[in-house]
């Protein structure tokens, strides 16, 4: 007897339509960027010239390569430090016994999401500046005589990016941690594992999917960070987006800006492709489904 395939749900397409529309728009924009990347830049004009490959050759120059390297380095460091700082917070958020501790942690962790990016960035300028909070504190404590340069450095940019990224990481990790079967941890303790060992051998491996997805998300979005490096880097720390901005809106070199944009996209996707085998291996080891 042949089994009848159930009819496709009638509203399926209707639900899909908005996202198809959005995807279409993005593709069109991307196509436009792609075509710009092959055009000749005419200095002093908003119009572009004919077909050329020169824009692609230009990215081989050391100055642009170093921006690329900085971007990847800052993104990797941001992802790692965000992970290290967020895990304890997420753990406490899920496991705190008292309700008010949990509520407080949720508020502390999530409110940064609701303050504007610019406001938050200016707050960091106040904290990191030569006469800012950190430097005055250290000076008053007699630990330094001249102010440390924190603002306009890769360090300062990374610190701000980590803080910017933590809420999302905390949410992702908290979800993963809350899915860990408490009885598995109890079983490990019952079998003789001290608390740290329980964490290392049971809790951490079982939250690995959250750790991996969180790290990837933060890495990918830091790759495209703009306003934080723009304001805190103050032109001294350039990430790819800042370079794109500079090329596109200062010198109006749209073709080269397009090439840089595509490069950023490629690097982000390429890095994810590179770490993918490692993730696969980890996921096989954890095998949660």
């Amino acid at each position, binding site marked *: 007897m042949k089994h009848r395939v159930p009819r496709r749900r009638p509203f399926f397409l209707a639900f899909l339509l908005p996202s198809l529309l959005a995807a279409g728009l993005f593709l069109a924009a991307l196509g436009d960027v792609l075509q710009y990347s092959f055009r000749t830049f005419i200095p002093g004009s908003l119009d572009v010239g004919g077909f050329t490959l020169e824009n692609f050759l230009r990215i081989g120059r050391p100055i642009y390569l170093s921006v690329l390297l900085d971007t990847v380095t800052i993104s990797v460091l941001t992802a790692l430090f965000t992970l290290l700082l967020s895990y304890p917070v997420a753990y406490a958020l899920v496991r705190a016994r008292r309700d008010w501790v949990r509520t407080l942690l949720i508020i502390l962790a999530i409110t940064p999401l609701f303050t504007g990016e610019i406001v938050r960035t200016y707050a960091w300028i106040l904290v990191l500046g030569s006469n800012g909070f950190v430097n005055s504190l250290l000076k008053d404590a007699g630990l330094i005589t001249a102010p440390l340069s924190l603002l306009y450095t890769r360090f300062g940019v990374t610190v701000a990016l980590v803080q910017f990224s933590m809420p999302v990481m905390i949410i992702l990790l908290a979800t993963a941690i809350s899915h860990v079967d408490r009885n598995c941890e109890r079983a490990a303790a019952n079998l*003789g594992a001290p608390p740290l060992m329980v964490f290392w051998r049971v809790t951490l491996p079982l939250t690995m999917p959250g750790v991996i997805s969180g790290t990837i998300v933060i890495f990918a979005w830091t790759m495209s960070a703009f306003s934080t490096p723009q304001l805190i880097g103050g032109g001294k720390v350039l990430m790819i987006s800042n370079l794109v901005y500079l090329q596109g809106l200062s010198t109006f070199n749209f073709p080269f800006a397009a090439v840089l944009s595509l490069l950023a996209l490629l690097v982000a996707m390429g890095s994810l492709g590179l770490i993918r085998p490692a993730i696969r291996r980890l996921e096989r080891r954890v095998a949660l489904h």
Partner: protein
Amino acid sequence: MGQGAAAGTPPFAAETAVELVGVGKSFGPVTAVRELSLAIRRGEVLTLLGPSGCGKTTLLNMIAGFEEPSAGRILIDGRDVTEVPPYLRDTGMVFQSYALFPHMDVFENVAFGLRMRKLPKAKIAAEVMRALEMVKLGGLERRRVRQLSGGQQQRVALARAIVLRPKVLLLDEPLSALDKNLRAQMQVELKELHERTRLTTLFVTHDQGEALSLSDRIVVMSRGEIQQIAAPIELYRHPANSFVASFIGEINRLPPARCRLSGGEIVFSLAGIELTAARRDDLALGDGQQVHLFVRPEHLAVAAEAAGGRNRIACRVVTHVYQGTHTLTRVEAGALGVLQLRVPGGAVIERAPPGSEIGVEINLDEAVALPD
């Protein structure tokens, strides 16, 4: 990893593996376990039996160290472990949900405790294999736990606990997640396993059948209190109170009766009729005492004739529930209310269809009489 009973402990300690002294637990205003004392003898299977919410799992968790008692002391092998964290208690817990490590294979699950004890590799491999053989899982050591059936997961959980030869094996409703046939089979295997390992075992269940078939002694609990501690047969035949009487096995509760002693017999008058029983030592009943009688379905029989004769009453059949080896027959017994009979075989279903009048003989010689 505590040492064995210290040299200075009193002699009874050698017989006692786990001792609870005045242990109680409350969660805020709610009392989960009322202060109680209990001793688990070395090598026995002691069962905590009771309906859900009676405090049995809380008690188990306190022995394992997952819950801190609000009062009292817990001693394992004579050592006070009340303040000792779970990982130093040397108990072996089998969780209701098994709580196997999903990121490890069968071998690694069983090896976990041995690795924590930093045993040499070869020794670990040998011990794991031995434990897996014991639970009949030889050859599956490289299987992922997610690929195992419920029964197999149960065995891994057991192997993981017994491989460490814990001072006490704690089983938290280990069979409740299995289907009926598998449960019966695992009951037999648990019993065999215990005979081979002789591990002191505390078994928690709400299933009286499991309790009766697996235990050396049963602790019946209700509302955080111990109702009775006794061997299964003793518990079934001489329940201490009406809760135990109705919780263990099927039982008919008769209306209040007044006793009268007459020669070698006790006469109970209830609901306008008289029932007699031979005098028994265990029924220390006084003349004129008010009691409640409890009679097991197997002590009620279909009589040849409908009326007349000792302890015989006329009844009308309500339903039959055929069970293979026997039939459970419910009858309407007038002033005695509805009674349940256990009739061997299934012939009664045709002989006395629902609605028909039959005589039922009540054998009170093994009835339970509890003071009102």
